[in-house]
């Protein structure tokens, strides 16, 4: 019988890599500074020892090595490219958007591109505007890509395993703020998580709160706090930015009649916007109040510890939005 253990998000990613590399000898990992210590965020710990030669330390050449990831995926089998910070994906966008995402289509279905581009994303501390961004919306806009933004260790493990068994290019974004977080994860190596399937992390009756990445945890805390006031919040981790589990969200809103979407990335054209727009389109008659989005404001991330908080949605913002839709 499979058992549940509490492990960190980082360990969950590591387990997914390890289990799938055991299962599929074709899996390769390319990335910067991944040896000997397992990378800047340490997710590859112990893998080089178990799978010598399958972790390839690359030069600082993301366009080059992600392009090679496309080629290696086309020529047979899953490849993982780690981009050290999601912000640096700007230098290999062509390889992701014009190559990986389009090859199956342009070749009329001949090509499979099992390329997983993994990148830590989101807010850090004192690292400034070029090391803190969240790009799930950019990739969710591109047909041919799947985009994972797991909010829990279980989602991270299940989705990464699923990506590695699939034949599609996946942008796999890991919120840096989650790496040390613990959560229950099954030890069944055959348990995958389905792309496009969200998860109800807390059932509730009064408001639907769709909260991704770090916002999931802020949202759960807010839900716990507001429960004391008798407000019963349903908290959903969408888990993927593409495809989005609209059915789950719409069904929830049908019950709660109220929607708040919380997203760490910048508001405009975000995943939060997409979810809000879809509910306004398909769930309009369920809604008893305006939808509310809580997201990063339209500013680059500042450096100073006194400025950083202004650039990020806080628990208080989520709580205020919930109170508004209940007003």
């Amino acid at each position, binding site marked *: 019988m499979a058992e549940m253990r509490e492990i960190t998000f980082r360990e969950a990613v590591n387990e997914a890599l390890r289990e799938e590399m055991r299962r599929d000898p074709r899996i390769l990992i390319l990335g910067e500074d991944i040896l000997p210590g397992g990378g800047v965020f340490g997710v590859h710990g112990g893998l080089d020892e178990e799978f010598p030669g399958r972790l*390839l330390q690359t030069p600082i050449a993301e366009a*080059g090595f992600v*392009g090679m990831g496309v*080629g290696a995926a086309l*020529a047979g089998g899953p490849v993982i490219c780690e981009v050290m910070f999601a912000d640096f994906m700007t230098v290999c966008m062509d390889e992701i958007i014009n190559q990986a995402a389009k090859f199956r*289509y342009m070749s*009329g279905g001949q090509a499979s591109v099992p390329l997983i581009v993994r990148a830590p994303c989101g807010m850090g501390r004192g690292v400034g505007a070029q090391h803190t961004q969240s790009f799930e919306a950019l990739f969710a806009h591109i047909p041919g890509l799947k985009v994972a933004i797991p909010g829990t260790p279980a989602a991270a493990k299940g989705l990464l395993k699923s990506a590695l068994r699939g034949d599609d290019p996946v942008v796999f974004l890991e919120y840096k703020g989650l790496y040390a977080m613990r959560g229950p994860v099954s030890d069944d190596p055959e348990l995958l998580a389905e792309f496009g399937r969200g998860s109800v992390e807390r059932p509730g009756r009064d408001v639907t709160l769709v909260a991704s990445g770090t916002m999931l945890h802020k949202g759960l805390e807010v839900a716990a706090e507001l429960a004391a006031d008798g407000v019963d919040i349903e908290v959903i981790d969408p888990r993927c930015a593409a495809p989005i589990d609209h059915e789950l969200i719409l069904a929830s809103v049908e019950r709660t009649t109220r929607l708040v979407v919380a997203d760490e990335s910048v508001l405009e054209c975000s995943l939060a916007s997409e979810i809000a727009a879809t509910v306004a389109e398909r769930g309009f008659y369920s809604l008893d109040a305006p939808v509310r989005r809580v997201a990063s404001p339209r500013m680059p991330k500042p450096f100073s510890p006194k400025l950083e908080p202004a650039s990020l949605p806080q628990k208080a913002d989520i709580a205020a939005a919930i109170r508004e839709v209940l007003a």
Partner: protein
Amino acid sequence: MTTASGDNAARALHLDLYRMMTRIRAFEEAALYESGRGNVYGPLHACIGQEAIPAGLAPLLRPTDYVTSTHRGHGHALAKGADPQGMMAELFGRADGICRGKGGSQHIADFSVGMLGANGIVGAGYGIAAGAALRIRQAGRDDVSVVFFGDGAMARGTLHEVANICVLWKLPVLFVCEHNGFAQWVPSSENLCTDAVAGLMAGYGMPSRQVDGTDALAMHGCAAGFIADMRAGGGPAFIDARANRFHGHNSMDAQAYRSRDDVSRLRAEADPLALFRAATAAAGVLAAADMDPLDAAAEAEMRAAAEAALAGPWPDPADAWEDILAPRKAHAHG
């Protein structure tokens, strides 16, 4: 190679080289003809004048080798063994096109023969070819990966990112620059600060050579050495293949930037097919009587391909929804 079997081998090679050149020429002449008749959708980038480059490599390549190509990719695809009828149907946007009508000329691919695609992004092929080469080495195969690109594409940084990694990791990648003197209508002298592009790779310690890309035998000879070395475990190499583009950048380019005389002179002096005929005749290897039938056969083959493609079915609009993602697999999901 003065033995009879050497003579036979040389003769066979010469026939192969010429056959491929004339097939590429005939394919593109037929495609341009159909384009003029409105049967080709979108722009066509013809490699006429540059046929000796892919043709020179063709006899050296196996189906399990890989090739990545450019917007000017018909010759590369044919040299790698792609089916001309499927290619032609693709240019016409038909359902039986080699990419089901979804790619068109700039995205022709035939994965069944290791042709990993023409590409609409200049400089995108380097990484893809190198990644395929990584798979070759991982699997312990002795195959090679060839990346074709234009001289204009040498200005893209991806070349250097990938060249450095290929040397570092000793990957079997043959870089073939089709140095035709133009990037669209910009002469190379405005695009690259040096004409001696092989020298740009010398700093990496990559074996590099300039070759007359209008001479199929020279191309073949140079590539043979490099490829043999790679199959034996060697790393990447670079060929600066000099040739000329007889047509405009594409079928929509009226070539206002160069004179008709320039083009006529090139056709008269630097036609790889004519040069090959003259040289092989002079060397006594092949006679006109050997090559004329190849021309006729190629023309017939490509006309038939065009006719058959024209008779092919159009895709159904609903087909547009296929091939976006892989078909779903059954899994245990948590």
